[in-house]
Structure formats: structure tokens, C-alpha cells
């Protein structure tokens, strides 16, 4: 296949990566731990952990998973943690033990958590105590047998640990009461693991590393099977892309985006591979603490989403952050707004480099060259060892300039959806091409641009929201007759969730409905806007909803013939 984009690669970026350089992601991580041993690998709340310490702690956790929890190779382990030092320790421990990581958003509601634990068949979970009450509500009905709980300060030095844990619990009152029988404390698990022998597991490219959950148009979250081979490839691809300007063992990355988000995860692991110190920011909404972390870090790179860069630019104190070493700012997960890109460039001297990908591609597949002078408005060119094409609705490639569906092929493309062969067959072709559902164009130089999404997906601050899931929750309310959800432009979040509702109970208020939503949906999925209509939602005569007409300010009358219902 013709790869016109190769001519646009900056000097030093190879056309191909050697995905066989490591047999598995865990071997790659272990190699970095050995190579950069005494350098700081991760830091959080002012405390650093070296590559050697991470190696030791993750090995202890792996031994505990093998010998005490008695998990078997291939078992799934859920991680319900924000960006704390426990995250990389647990992550590497799970991978080293030959187990599969299931990332869980800690803010998930009971309903969302139940689905993910069930669907993945997770045998164990590592959860921050602040979120244990959610798990406690559902654990009885899930396959989870082993629970490890941890407190925010657990991996900080002794005095700070006790202080931090006490403040989180008793002063900030961030730990709702919970009770989980037989839950094991993370520190106890590490201690017990240190007393046991860890048995090295031989893993290959085909072994699963992650079940990374992603929504679907029809509302059910599916687990993308990302293998060790997928992850090794994407980490090396991203590392090759950012490599030329970066010096091994000498950089500092700030990561305010949660690591359970695949873009943050792979991005951070790419930097880990080159011995970078990664500064974990647990809660970027706590802007004073975030600015403090930036001031203390002398950062050379940062990974975020448009909303976050925008919030930083507006934050008091950002102007005083020392950005003299900043070389790279990477944005993904959502479209970058031109105004934000321009302000960022003016304020920092470094362009916002936008990348593109899907959970299903581990995720990065297309990115702007890191040496672009300005924001391009496009998503860039395919990474090394990656092919991209624009396909028509019959799956045939289209010539440059024409709008079609973006398709991707490369070693980072997932093996499929966990236990969903039919869903897999819909997006993954036999010849290896992944259909993204995103519409776009390619120019004659091989640069890609997004035009529209094929799916009715809403992206709120980099998080995907699928209307059907929200409609499902709205429909659960007895006062709702009909509901539809659409995305509307939002200056801050890029897009916001809007619910259009026809009431069954005329007394139903917006507040009632939002309270109901908050019970069943993570915050970013809860509608920001609610519009009540008295007419039925606009539909074709045969009963198919017309989403485009939902966006009109003036409610459309439904056709005079009521829809005919089918079998």
C-alpha cells in the first residue's frame, strides 16, 4: 500500500518500529526498571518512587496475586484507582503475574460497575477506599472473589501516609462508609507478597494485557482485547514519534489525565520506556494542587485533553509555572479547539500536538508530527507501522480529498471485543482493517482530518458518551414517556449531553430527573441540559427517530400518521 505520509515524518522518526523487540509489555516494563533503576519513575503528592522501588513493589504484588490470591494466568483483575503511586504498582504487578488488567473509572456508579465486572468476569479488584462503598453495593452479584483496598496515602513515607490517610478520611471526609468482607489491605498484600517467591511467567504477543472498556452506539460497554503485542507496539510507536526530541532518563512528564483512560495509559508508558519521571496528578479539578504539582516538577512534557489545557490557561498561577524545559504538549481524546491551541502556543511557546486513535487501537494511530509549528486543525499522519485509509460505505478506498470512514491497520489494532464475536466482526475486517466509525478525509500528502462521527457519540472532555446508555437510564424513570439524548456544542467541555424528554408525569422536574441520572451515571454522562417537550419526539412514519431534527431549537411536530410498530 502507498504511504504518502512517510515523506512528512520528522527527521529521526522511523517508518517502522520493531514490535518484536519485546516479547511482552511486562518484559518491556521490567527492562526499563532494570535500565533506569535509581531514577525516579513516578511521583505523586511530592513523593517519588524509583524504577527499582517500582520493580520491587510490583514483583511483591505479583507474588501475592499468584500465591495468596491464587489467581491463574489469564484471570482478569479490575483496577479502580485514580492517579496515585498504587496505580503503576498494581498495574505492573497484575501484568507480571500474567493476569489481565480491567481499568475501571473510580467514579462509576453501582450500575456501571456491575456491568463491567460481570462482562469482564473479573476475579479480583484493587479499589481505592474512597470508592469501596460503590463496590460494596454490588459485589455480591459479581464474580469478584478477591478485593484489595488501598488508602490515598498508602505508598507515601510513614509519617505522611498516616497524616494523608487521616486527612482524607476525617477532615475532607472523602471516604463514605463501606464494608467488604475479607477485603485485604494493599500494604498487607505487598508485605505478604514480599515473603513469597514470585514465579516468572512467560508471555507472548498474543497474551491479553487489558480488557479496556469502551461504549457502543447501542449502549453496552464492550471490552476491547488489547494484547501484550498491541501494547508493546503502540508504546514503541508513540515513543518513536516523540523520541527525537526527548533524552532518555532526563525528562519529566506531567499526567493529569486518569491512567484508566487508554490515551493516558499508553502515553505514560511510552515515556516510562525512555526513563522519564512521571508526575501523577490525581485530581486536576483541584486546580491549586495541580498548579502546585506543575510548579514543583519542571516539566518537559504534558499529556491532556482540550478541556484540561483550557482550564490550565485560565487558572490563576499558571503564568508563574516554569515552562522553560517544556518540549511537548500532547492532546487527545477529543478535538482540540483552535482558540485553545492558539492560546496555548502563545502562553507556552509549544504547540498542542493532537493525536487520534480509539480504544480499539491501543489507542494512538494517527498524530501530528511533534515538530509542527502551529496547530494544524487536522489529526496528522499515521504512526510508524500503521496504515490508514478512507473507505466508502462499501468498504472500498476513496481517492484523496473525499469524505469517508477512517480505517486503521497496524500491530496496535485490538484482537476483538471480549466475548462479542459479532460486534468484533462489525468493526474488524478479516484483512486486519479496523473501521473506526469516524468520518474524515486524507489529502494527497497523507494527512488526515476528521469531519464527522458516524456514531451518535458525544465526547465530553475526552470521555465518550453513548446516547443510548443515557436514554436507557432516563427511560427507567417512571415519569418519562420518551427520551432522546444528543450532543450540543459546549465551550468548556467541547460537547455537552442534552436530554430531550417527553413526560408521562407532568409534575416531573429537571431536578428530579437529574437526581435520578446521578444515581445511575458517572458525572460526565449526566445531562447538562434538559429540554421537556409536549409533542412526541420527531420520527419517520415507520417509527425511527430523527436525531437531526432533535437539534432544532423549535420542536418538530411528529408526522400526522403515528408510527407503525414492527415485530
Amino acid at each position, binding site marked *: 500500500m502507498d504511504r504518502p505520509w512517510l515523506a512528512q515524518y520528522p527527521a529521526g522518526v522511523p517508518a517502522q518500529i520493531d514490535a518484536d523487540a519485546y516479547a511482552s509489555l511486562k518484559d518491556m516494563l521490567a527492562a526499563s526498571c532494570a535500565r533506569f533503576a535509581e531514577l525516579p519513575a513516578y511521583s505523586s503528592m511530592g513523593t517519588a518512587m524509583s524504577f527499582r522501588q517500582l520493580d520491587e513493589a510490583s514483583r511483591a504484588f505479583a507474588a501475592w496475586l499468584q500465591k495468596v490470591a491464587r489467581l491463574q494466568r489469564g484471570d482478569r483483575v479490575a483496577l479502580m484507582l485514580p492517579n496515585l503511586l498504587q496505580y503503576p504498582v498494581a498495574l505492573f504487578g497484575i501484568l507480571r503475574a500474567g493476569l489481565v488488567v480491567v481499568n475501571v473509572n473510580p467514579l462509576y456508579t453501582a450500575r456501571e460497575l456491575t456491568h463491567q465486572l460481570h462482562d469482564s468476569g473479573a476475579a479480583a479488584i484493587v479499589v481505592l477506599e474512597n470508592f469501596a462503598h460503590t463496590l460494596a453495593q454490588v459485589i455480591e452479584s459479581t464474580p469478584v472473589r478477591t478485593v484489595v483496598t488501598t488508602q490515598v496515602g498508602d505508598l507515601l513515607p510513614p509519617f505522611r501516609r498516616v497524616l494523608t490517610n487521616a486527612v482524607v478520611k476525617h477532615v475532607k471526609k472523602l471516604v463514605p462508609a463501606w464494608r467488604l468482607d475479607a477485603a485485604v489491605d494493599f500494604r498487607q498484600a505487598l508485605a505478604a507478597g514480599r515473603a513469597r517467591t514470585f514465579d516468572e511467567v512467560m508471555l507472548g504477543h498474543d497474551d491479553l494485557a487489558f480488557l479496556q472498556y469502551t461504549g457502543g452506539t447501542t449502549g453496552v460497554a464492550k471490552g476491547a482485547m488489547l494484547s501484550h503485542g498491541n501494547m508493546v507496539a503502540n508504546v514503541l510507536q508513540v515513543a518513536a514519534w516523540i523520541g527525537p526530541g526527548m533524552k532518555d532518563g532526563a525528562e519529566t512528564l506531567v499526567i493529569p489525565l486518569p491512567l484508566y483512560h487508554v490515551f493516558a495509559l499508553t502515553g505514560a508508558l511510552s515515556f516510562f520506556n525512555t526513563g522519564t519521571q512521571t508526575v501523577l496528578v490525581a485530581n486536576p479539578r483541584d486546580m491549586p494542587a495541580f498548579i502546585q504539582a506543575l510548579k514543583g516538577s519542571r516539566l518537559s512534557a504534558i499529556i491532556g485533553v482540550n478541556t484540561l489545557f483550557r482550564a490550565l490557561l485560565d487558572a490563576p498561577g499558571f503564568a508563574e509555572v516554569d515552562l522553560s524545559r517544556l518540549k511537548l504538549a500532547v492532546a487527545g481524546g477529543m478535538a482540540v479547539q483552535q482558540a485553545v491551541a492558539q492560546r496555548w502556543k502563545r502562553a507556552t511557546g509549544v504547540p498542542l500536538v493532537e493525536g487520534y486513535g480509539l480504544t480499539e487501537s491501543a489507542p494512538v494511530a494517527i498524530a501530528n508530527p511533534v515538530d509542527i509549528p502551529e496547530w494544524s486543525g487536522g489529526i496528522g499522519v499515521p504512526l510508524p507501522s500503521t496504515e490508514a485509509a478512507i473507505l466508502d460505505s462499501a468498504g472500498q478506498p476513496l481517492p484523496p480529498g473525499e469524505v469517508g470512514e477512517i480505517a486503521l491497520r497496524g500491530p496496535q489494532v485490538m484482537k476483538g471485543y471480549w466475548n462479542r464475536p459479532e460486534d468484533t466482526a462489525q468493526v474488524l475486517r478479516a484483512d486486519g482493517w479496523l473501521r473506526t*466509525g469516524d*468520518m474524515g478525509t486524507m489529502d494527497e500528502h497523507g494527512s488526515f482530518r476528521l469531519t464527522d*462521527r458516524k*456514531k451518535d457519540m458525544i465526547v465530553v472532555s475526552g470521555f465518550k458518551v453513548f446516547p443510548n446508555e443515557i436514554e436507557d437510564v432516563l427511560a427507567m424513570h417512571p415519569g418519562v414517556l420518551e427520551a432522546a439524548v444528543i450532543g450540543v456544542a459546549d465551550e468548556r467541555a467541547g460537547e455537552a449531553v442534552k436530554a430531550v424528554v417527553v413526560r408521562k408525569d407532568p409534575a416531573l422536574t429537571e431536578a428530579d430527573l437529574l437526581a435520578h441520572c446521578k444515581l445511575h451515571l458517572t458525572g460526565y454522562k449526566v445531562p447538562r441540559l434538559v429540554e421537556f417537550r409536549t409533542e412526541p419526539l420527531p420520527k419517520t412514519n*415507520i417509527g*425511527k427517530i430523527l436525531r*437531526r431534527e432533535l437539534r432544532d431549537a423549535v420542536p418538530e411536530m411528529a408526522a400526522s400518521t403515528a408510527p407503525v410498530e414492527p415485530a
Partner: protein
Amino acid sequence: MASKPAPYRPRRLVLRDGREVTLRAITESDAPAIQRAFDRLSADSRYQRFLHHKKQLSPAALERGVHPLPGQAFAFVATVPGPGGIDIVGAAQYVRAAEDDATTCEFAITVAEDWRGIGLARQLLASLLRRARRDGYAAMEGLVLAENAPMLALARKLKFVVEPSSPDSSAVRVLRMLAPPPPPAPAARAQT
């Protein structure tokens, strides 16, 4: 437009996996079976049919569904013997696309999950095309979820044109022009 709908004689179909169904016009006594068929459909399938989350069929809509307006609308059901007499495992229907346009009809097809991949949808849609042409329509259109690849593939096979995806919508329109109805069958051969 034919004012009197031609009757439709039930037909037995043998599907690719050897299972058989009866294809016939919907009748008002099908309402309970339609309701059961809807209840068995997964949330995904309902979404594909209605393009939004649909919790239940309203009694009024069900009533209208089993009484297609003669000459303007039609519905086929594919049935198999079931505990309550019959089970409906597939349905295809068309209705007039707009009140003021007698030339175009809109279609919808639903096949039970465990009856897919064996040619039933194709039979239903092909029958529906013939029926619509006979009823005097010049074109048939439909709205299909853009990621519903099997339905789009079927539409293409049956010579529908798939219009490019419209901005900010996940559904695409498919359109098929219908040839004029065939000339009346020649009179029965004269007796010799």
C-alpha cells in the same frame, strides 16, 4: 396507486440452515405474538429498529401495526409454530413515507436474533420490494444505523443506493427505485 390490495398467499420458506418459516401478511390476531417478539429483542436490536432506546410498544402503536392501511402500507411476518400457537421470528413492513407523497414508501425489517445470518432478512426485503412495486410505489427508502453493517450490505445486494452519512447523524438513508409493475398476466390459455 392500486386502491384494492391484492391478497397475499402464505408461503413456506426453507432457510439456509434448514429451518422453515411461513411468510404471510400480518393480521390483527398477530398482536400478542408481535408483543412477545418485541419483548424478546435485545436492547441493541430495538435500537437498530427505532434508532433510539425503546422500552415498550404502546398498545395504540401495536394496534396500528397489525392494521396496515390497505394499498398504502403492508407488513409481512415470518412465523414458526410456538407455545402460544405461533412465534414471529421476523417482520418487514412499509408505510407511506410522507402523507402528501404517494410515490415513496419507507421500510423497516426486524429479525429475531437467533434467526439471523440464514437469509431471512433478504427474503423479507425482497418480498417487500415486490409488494411495494405492485402497490404502485415508485421508490422505497429506509433509515439505517450507519454501523449496522449487515443491513447495509443487504440493502446494497438488493440494489439500494446508500446515501453518504449526513453530518451529525448516525443513520444513513438507503433508497431503491422500483420498476413499474409487471404487465397483467396473460389470460389463461384457451381450452382446446
